[in-house]
């Protein structure tokens, strides 16, 4: 916001100082936020529109060139950005506008010096030349790989379903889902209908600043509609526009000068006017008051609850805290070797790295899609295949999130389809999404679950020994509202992994990859053998018990 404010100020004053300040704050945004590209495109677009409107002047030229030169140089200091500003398409617009500004300046200069006829001829030749050079340059550079091809993020901005089809990993993040209308209203409350009024007021004025606001409003509305997280960019302009609208409104309705004057002349008409004004004003004061209440409530309930600690209310209204994540992470930190490697879905990568202080295979900043797909594959294939992958990766521990006992819906089984899809994107021959659905196309986890589902490591890790918790009753998965039969739940076995920790509410389950068998047998055979013997022993014990019963008679 400050960047934008300084930008507008510098445009108005044509001051190098403010443009430089803008660049400094732009640099701050670049270093702090990945969405700085938004600013990088906003400012050039504004300038471009001003150019189209014929508003070019030296103030704009001064501020833009200063900002662009300084801002770009500074942003290139950030390792992550590097040479992106001249290579990637995201930054093309600003570079283009920069070039365009120079051209416009040149043209203006020529216009003053040359005669009209010469100027026209020169313009045509020059225009053709420039456009040819620019287009061939762009195409060539793209072909040669100097300029990065259009990224997936760019596509998903234009076509919301693009990501779902081509890049499951982008679509798997809930923040990248399209925004729903309710969330617009939830986040913005009554500002949502004051916003268009503000934009309308901007159209009436059409000063440089108003144009900027309009551009900002249009762009961010679109983006906010595409991705829920880009709501972030919409809110500032909504606030400004609604502020404009409200300010105008109060200007009119709080103006009692007129009334006081007219009241001296004729009383009754003035009174109704005062009354109506007061009603409107008080309505809005009420709205504003309510808005503050709503915002406080929304931030406290929806936006400030950390996802690591879950708070719930017991029936008597007292707050109970479910701290399973930290419990398990702290266990990992305290009771595993320092160099152990933990395999978990990437969502928990940072949490494990930060809280458990252990190495993970994939985390929230993993750029390599194949890495993520490998972990996804290890989770979604059968135990034998998964063991091979895990041994190759050097896995020590595997961590899964299971919400079935508590009814925590953000667990791994609900994210499982994304893992399958991402893995399928790389190994379509090994993983197939269809095998995880039943014949009737249902996503089931109970006795009637699809074979692929029942075989997958993720499924087994989630439900391993889940049945034992319920005695002889049928265990219920509270997230998916499905009932497993007791016998079936008890028959879920896991041989290559050993359970080493499960948190209090079963949200986090940690398994350890067993060492290879000393005799070179496969771990699954060993497990089968043990079960056979165990069941024999159980049978023997059952038969042995019988005489005791007889003796009692």
């Amino acid at each position, binding site marked *: 916001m400050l960047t934008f404010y300084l930008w507008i100020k510098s445009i108005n004053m044509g001051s*190098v100082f403010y443009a430089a300040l803008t660049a400094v704050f732009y640099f701050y945004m670049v270093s702090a936020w990945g969405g700085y590209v938004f600013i990088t495109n906003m400012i050039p677009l504004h300038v471009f529109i001003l150019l189209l409107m014929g508003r070019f002047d*030296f103030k704009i030229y001064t501020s833009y060139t200063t900002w662009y030169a300084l801002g770009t140089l500074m942003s290139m200091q950030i390792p992550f950005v590097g040479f992106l500003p001249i290579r990637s398409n995201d930054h093309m617009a600003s570079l283009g506008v920069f070039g365009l500004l120079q051209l416009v300046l040149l043209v203006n200069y020529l216009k003053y010096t040359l005669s009209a006829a010469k100027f026209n001829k020169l313009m045509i030749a020059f225009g053709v030349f420039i456009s040819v050079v620019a287009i061939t340059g762009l195409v060539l550079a793209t072909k040669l790989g100097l300029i990065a091809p259009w990224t997936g993020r760019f596509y998903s901005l234009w076509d919301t379903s693009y990501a779902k089809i081509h890049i499951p990993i982008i679509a798997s993040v809930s923040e990248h889902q399209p925004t729903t209308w309710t969330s617009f209203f939830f986040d913005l409350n009554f500002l949502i209908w004051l916003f268009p009024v503000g934009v309308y007021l901007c159209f009436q004025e059409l000063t440089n600043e108003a144009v900027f606001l309009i551009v900002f409003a249009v762009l961010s509305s679109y983006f906010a509609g595409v991705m829920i997280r880009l709501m972030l960019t919409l809110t500032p302009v909504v606030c400004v526009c609604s502020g404009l609208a409200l300010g105008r409104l109060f200007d009119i309705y709080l103006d009692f000068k007129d009334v006081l004057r007219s009241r001296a002349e004729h009383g009754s008409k003035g009174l109704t006017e005062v009354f109506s004004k007061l009603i409107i004003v008080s309505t809005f004061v009420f709205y504003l008051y309510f808005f503050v209440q709503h915002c406080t409530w929304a931030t406290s309930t929806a936006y400030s609850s950390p996802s690591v600690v879950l708070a719930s209310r017991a029936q008597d209204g007292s707050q109970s805290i479910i701290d399973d994540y930290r419990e398990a992470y*702290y266990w990992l*930190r305290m009771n595993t070797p320092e160099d152990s490697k933990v395999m978990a879905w990437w969502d928990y990568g940072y949490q494990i790295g930060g809280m458990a202080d252990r190495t993970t295979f994939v985390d929230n900043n993993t750029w390599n899609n194949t890495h993520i797909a490998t972990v996804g594959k290890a989770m979604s294939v059968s135990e034998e295949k998964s063991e091979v992958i895990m041994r190759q990766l050097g896995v020590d521990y595997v961590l899964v999130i299971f919400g079935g006992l508590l009814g925590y819906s953000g667990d791994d089984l609900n994210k499982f389809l994304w893992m399958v899809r991402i893995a399928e994107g790389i190994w379509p021959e090994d993983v197939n999404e269809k095998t995880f659905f039943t014949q009737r196309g249902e996503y089931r986890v109970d006795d009637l679950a699809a074979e692929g589902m029942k075989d997958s490591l993720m499924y087994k890790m989630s439900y391993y*020994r889940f049945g034992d*918790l319920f005695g002889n009753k049928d265990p219920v998965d509270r997230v998916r509202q499905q009932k497993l039969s007791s016998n079936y739940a008890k028959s879920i076995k896991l041989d290559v992994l050993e*359970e*080493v920790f*499960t948190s209090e509410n079963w949200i986090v389950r940690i398994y350890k990859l067993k060492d290879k068998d000393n005799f070179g047998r496969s771990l699954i055979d060993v497990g089968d053998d043990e079960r056979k013997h165990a069941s024999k022993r159980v049978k023997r014990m059952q038969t042995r018990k019988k005489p005791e019963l007889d003796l009692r008679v």
Partner: protein
Amino acid sequence: MNLISIIFGVLFYLSACSAFEVSQTWEISNYQRTLDVLKSYVKDRTTIVARNIGSEPSAEIYAVVPGDRKDLALQVSILESPQLTAPVLTSELVATENGFNYYRIDLPFPMAPKSEIRLMLSYIVINQISTLVEEDKMGAPQYLQIHTYKEPLSVYETKKYQLAIVGAKEFNELSTKKEGSPEPVPSRERDTYLFGPYEGEYKANHFDEFHFSYRHDFPLPYVYNLERNFWVSHWSDSLQLEEYYELSNKAVKLDSGFSRVDFMNSKLGHSYSSVMNSIMVPLPENVETEGVYYTDKVGNVTTSAFVHGDLLLKPRFPIFGGWHYNFTLGWEHKLSEFAHAVDGALGEYLLKVKLLDGLVDAVYENVTLSVYLPEGAKFINATAPFEWEDMVIDHEYSYLDVSSGHTKVTFYFSNLVDELRGLDIIVHYKYSVLAMLKKPFVTAFYIFLALMGLYFLRKIDVNIKPKGYAPNPASK
């Protein structure tokens, strides 16, 4: 009067049973030893009645304590008879041979020949208890074992002895029985097993190995490192304590991974077992305690409660044998209840802090106790009930420190047990009014400097326009 101090020939035998010999000027007429195994360490208390059989009065007597010296937590010898006002005797380690430590105890006055004294020797040896099996199933009863000695541990001949083992449930002797000799069978009263009293001739330096196991369904808390930091603030009249524990449980380990199902089904979370489900921390009595907090390396732990004025901590996870759990605990007292000005010396204070708070039953391997005196304070001296291993005085910067930082006095101890919690360390320091006033003044001065700096910065003209230049409106 110390004429009888005989220079003893210290003979080094290679045999395991005798290594250290003294002149046989004493004879033990009664030897009573009590092994207390109720806690997670062994408390050994021996009462001896010694008789001077020499021809001259003697003022020193030797005692032997088994165990590795680095495991010895505490050794105190008390003279019970004849009655004295200060019965605690000084003892000095004179030799360590084959896992035995020989102490010379100086008597307050020489004892005449044929006279008797009654001495009590008590010591605590840590790391003496181990689990009978390394790993076991979850919820299985826990058996512990101890290697010690049955017959009198003495460098003198003994006539009569008795050994009592307190708190050993389901006692079971494991040492191989000697052939021929009638094996003493302990008489039992509840959980106390009593051997003897037996009369006979028990040779000096004869060590009869004794190995037994017993059931102990309690955890064996073991603190590898404890950092206790006291922060003294005269301005806010507060004494803050922050403790950092590196806790472990030396109980029997799980033979397989931890299974939550079994844990829930066996109700181990609510019964006495070798698992540490909660940690009881008694808060200091008779003083006001404020702002208690309990955190670990991933943030606040919400599961703590006050039970009858004591603090009940619930770790994030149950601590099984071999598991570790680090946590931080802290609270605040009023400084006026712990420090008072020394009469007659302006600005001098005596601060009394506890050596230990915290766990009810625990062994501490290393304890670092630091007292952060306010900035500008001068450390004068300190006293502790027993000697510290090391004391370091340095400075550490904290908030709003303007010159050298807080004066930090650090004491290092090792091998402590929770029984020492009542002991105090007294720190004598000087903190003048001038030092007290220095901080606010210096801070105010810096703020003043910053404001002045701002004022001068604003005076600088950074305009690049020439003076008197007016922007030309026709420059379009």
